[in-house]
């Protein structure tokens, strides 16, 4: 699962090092975010090679335009996730539109539906990865391990009240994945980081 968010200092330093043209910084950036980027792209596009392509686009963009990230605005992780999301959804829409034009398969409404569904799924992934670990582990127990909230409370050594609270809060966060996105700024990435 997600690593703990680094201090903002890491983000700031990284941005400076990238701007300075330090190749070692690019390697560190990749090591920290490649699986996030690739995972989100794969969730949207459902294809390994397409996800590889988006991964390359994302890191090329960050390396070529390090100044387009502002550490004062948001964590680097959030920014990278939003960039990935935008590029992957763009790619999906382009591929689907091409298929629609060439093969006449489906309607524009179906296309929009598929794009939206993939987009929400990727945002949901990101929200789960980024939510506080106590919420995530409660959801994992209740959903994937099918523990009820009392068992979840016992497993995690918390009160039943707290277990109920975590399950509800976790789902509340997750439900923001459905929120309508402003173009280029998916709220899921801002809100849950």
């Amino acid at each position, binding site marked *: 699962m997600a690593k703990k968010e680094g201090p903002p200092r890491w983000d700031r330093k990284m941005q400076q090092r990238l701007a300075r043209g330090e190749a070692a910084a690019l390697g560190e950036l990749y090591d920290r975010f490649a699986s996030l980027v690739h995972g989100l792209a794969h969730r949207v596009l459902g294809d390994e090679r397409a996800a590889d392509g988006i991964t390359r686009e994302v890191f*090329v963009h960050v390396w070529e335009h390090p100044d387009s990230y502002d550490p004062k605005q948001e964590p680097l992780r959030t920014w990278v996730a939003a960039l990935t999301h935008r590029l992957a959804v763009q790619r999906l829409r382009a591929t689907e539109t091409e298929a629609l034009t060439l093969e006449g398969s489906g309607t524009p409404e179906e296309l929009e539906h598929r794009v939206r569904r993939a987009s929400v*799924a990727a945002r949901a992934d990101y929200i789960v990865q980024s939510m506080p670990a106590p919420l995530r582990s409660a959801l994992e127990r*209740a959903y994937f391990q099918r523990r009820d909230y009392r068992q979840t409370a016992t497993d995690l050594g918390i009160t039943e009240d707290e277990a109920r609270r975590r399950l509800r809060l976790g789902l509340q966060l997750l439900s923001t994945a459905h929120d309508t996105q402003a173009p280029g700024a998916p709220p899921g990435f801002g809100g849950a980081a």
Partner: protein
Amino acid sequence: MNGPDRFEEDESDVPDDSGQQAGDPLRIPMPRASVEDSGLPLPEPADLGDAAPPPVRPVLEHPVLKSLLGAWALAACSAEEATAVEQHLGECGACADEARRLREAVGLLQRPESLDLDPGLRTRVLESCLDRRPPRIPVPDWAAAYDAETARLDALLQDFGDAEWHAPVRLRWFRGDEATSRRTTVAGVIAHLLSVDGLVAVALGLDDPMGDVTARQPTPAARTEAYWRASHFPPTRAMRAPWREQSHHLVRTVSFTGSGVGRMPVPYGDFELPLHDAMLDRAFECWVHAEDIADAVDYPYDPPSPRHLHRMIDLAARMLPTALAHRRRTGLAAPARHRHLVAAGEPGRSLRLEIEGSGGGEWLIPLDSPAAKGSAEHEVAHIALDGVEFCRLAAGHVPPQEAAAGQVGDRDAIKDVLFAAASLSRM
């Protein structure tokens, strides 16, 4: 809204390995299990309200019911509680709205996808980037293998659970002509890499990862043993972060020190290597131990890229003449019947080392003195083996007698070179 509403949901949104659908009333847990096990038909959702009331129906207030919405949406509360919640939803619009949102959110829970990234992707992505915008501070060529190998090992460690971290590993190497080994765990191997990489860190003026721990000698083995001993507990997954941080730090530091510093000596206790070779040596060790780890947990692990493999083989080939001389001094090498010393820099009796496969090449190994020059005219023997096999030999993972090598020429020379290759190995 009454009853557990089945919200619209596409099949593809359901985690296929969970076996049950997210919003499916079948997932309501414990109290209904007996009904399910009985083989009787399940009540229709609409009938739930008519189910026989439990002996003591809990009277639940709005705040409690509200707090139950998450558990209810996940079918993680008791049947009595679910019934109470559902009755409440019919009466309370705010809770009904929230309940619907939360139920929909459950449909978004998905198992994380496998995070196994193609290790080659890193190289390809970084190259694309550096082509588009050449770096002002590049990673030196001789540090690229270390950068790539540490990244590959780190990716292998990414999804390890406790079982993997504590899996037993046997480190193997040669001492004299004897195969030797030492038991540790996956985490212990990372501790080993951390403490030996620390030799390079110290040479560069960085912090020694050993901290206050002192080794009897500044050798890789002594440092490792001291580091292992200093902890009261066996090493854990906590080793990963400091190891990775140090490896990033080393790559970064050598990028700044520039190519001129590549010749700076790095002491290994009983010998030393110039910095550029030390970084290659650490890349080689990182790969070898990553393979040890991968074997221990039964994961596949590929050899380094041909470019990096070639540099590692080249380092071993360059170290062979000194290893041969050491064997002669310690009486391990066969008495050289035909040995004839030549002046430094002059061509001497040589063995042709032909390495097959990607990353391979040919090296002429001077046999009689590290100062002599390898020479095709004075070639007395020729061995040919696969690059990965040669590296396993140099890592002490293949006994020299069993190395799969094609051999022509002076048998003593061949035996000496194979044993000298194995003697390059250490813990």
